[in-house]
């Protein structure tokens, strides 16, 4: 048939991507599963043996593990909370007529373009450092005791840094969505006697729901595996106070060389991510289909 060869050509063209991604998904994951059932430490090569579920039970009974799960969720939810609320507020602000809107946009988007290691180091040293940081100087200006952010509130500090990086993204997407709101709709609502607040609740917010969903989806993907920010600021500490699941597995694998344990942790991370993804996809499905 005339267009049939187009169709088999199409399959041929999709094949490389599908095969690559399939391999990328299956091969390492299968290996991780395999390793997770071994007693396998890089410092003791040749001593690998089948370990059953002991790696899992080790991980699941480790108090650090629960702390890590809590921290992972705290980072995701904390950052989402700050960026979505802050993003809506900023988007509403930037949508108003003003002078130099383009420049403000440029200023606001900048943190998103900064590599995580730089962002984390700048915040850690030049702002949050209790001796030489700018915050310490401001505190002293007001006669207050400088606060050692990374020692006393490590998780919050990480959340703040990451939120700073992601606020631009949320703002920009919400702003774009806001600007696509039909001007006539707003005018119609005004004619119908809706005040600013009810216009926001009944018109703007529903219009933004799709964009908010997208923000949550994309950010969650990235926030579940925050790593560099923790590595260069707190190194997971003090203790395990700012260790998330990603960092915990990293530490197990590349600091303690416990391949088996780290693999078990990795699998748990995958399962957790799948649970989150399941709920996300349902939510997305509802909003995006509509």
């Amino acid at each position, binding site marked *: 048939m005339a267009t049939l060869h187009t169709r088999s050509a199409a399959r041929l063209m999709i094949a490389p*991507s599908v095969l690559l991604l399939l391999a990328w998904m299956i091969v390492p994951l299968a290996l991780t599963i395999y390793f997770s059932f071994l007693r396998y430490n890089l410092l003791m090569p040749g001593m690998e043996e089948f370990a059953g579920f002991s790696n899992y039970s080790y991980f699941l009974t480790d108090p650090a593990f629960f702390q890590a799960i809590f921290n992972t969720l705290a980072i995701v939810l904390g950052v989402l909370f700050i960026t979505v609320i802050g993003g809506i507020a900023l988007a509403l602000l930037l949508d108003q007529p003003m002078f130099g809107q383009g420049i403000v946009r440029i200023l606001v988007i900048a943190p998103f373009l900064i590599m995580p290691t730089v962002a984390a180091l700048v915040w850690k040293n030049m702002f949050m450092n209790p001796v030489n940081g700018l915050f310490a100087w401001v505190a002293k200006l007001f006669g207050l005791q400088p606060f050692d952010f990374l020692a006393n509130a490590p998780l919050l500090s990480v959340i703040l840094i990451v939120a700073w990086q992601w606020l631009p993204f949320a703002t920009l997407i919400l702003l774009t969505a806001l600007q696509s709101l039909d001007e006539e709709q707003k005018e119609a609502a005004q004619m119908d006697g809706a005040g600013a607040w009810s216009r926001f609740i009944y018109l703007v917010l529903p219009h933004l729901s799709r964009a908010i969903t997208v923000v949550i989806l994309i950010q969650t993907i990235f926030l579940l595996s925050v790593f560099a920010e923790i590595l260069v600021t707190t190194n997971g500490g003090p203790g395990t106070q700012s260790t998330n699941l990603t960092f915990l597995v990293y530490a197990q694998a590349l600091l303690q060389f416990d391949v088996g344990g780290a693999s078990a942790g990795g699998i748990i991370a995958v399962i957790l991510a799948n649970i989150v993804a399941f709920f996300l996809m349902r939510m997305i499905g509802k909003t995006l289909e509509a």
Partner: protein
Amino acid sequence: MARNVSTRRKVVVTVVAWTIGILIFFPILWTFLTSFKSEAEAIASPPSLLFFDWTTENYFEVQSRSNYFRHFMNSVVVSFGSTLIGLVIAIPSAWAMAFSPTKRTKDVLMWMLSTKMMPSVGVLVPMYLMFRNTGLLDTRTGLVIVLTLINLPIIIWMLYTYFKEIPGEILEAARMDGASLSKEIIYVLTPMAIPGIASTLLLNIILAWNEAFWTLNLSAAKAAPLTAFIASYSSPEGLFYAKLSAASTMAIAPILILGWFSQKQLVRGLTFGAVK
């Protein structure tokens, strides 16, 4: 009167927005300024914003002490390399899915996106071991491979959404006009797709440039891109603010400028066209 009120309102909005904008931007500005200070001035209290002895010595220091340029080249090679290879693989796929979709196309796309959902840490161990055993650890090639794979789904999605916007009738017209598949791609599709391809390229270079899980874990010294190079500043505290700032400024400047020029595409790209 109404005119007056709205002008006043505009001024208030301007002041508030600029203040917030500058606050958000401040850490970057501060880094930039600090990079031109001496180490003593960098930690001086009270800090000075503009009135200090401007010097560029930090930049030379960073280069001479740690061979900054090599890490910069690593970043360039890794981000451009992975993006270009990704495009070569993704363009035919996205083209096929956009222009001869089947019932399963949406599912395939969803599945591709879902591979992004898999946390990298789930496969860190085997990737590390495989790279160690094949000598790919701490090589540019190894990083290019991994970054190509992790960004492939995003590249495909972005291209797909851009291609979808090219009216199918135009490709049919080309077919009626006697263009073969290859000519259709060369003369009609590619020129129309170039804006979309360009912004995909841009966004993925930015993402790859800033990627900081695999680059940190799979590179050490030789192939370390800027992300990993900067991370090495995390241990010595206090006295190296100016040099840290100079290194940071050099690491972020190219991407910052690239990103500023492509804000619009950035948003569209990252939302896969779901928000316009």
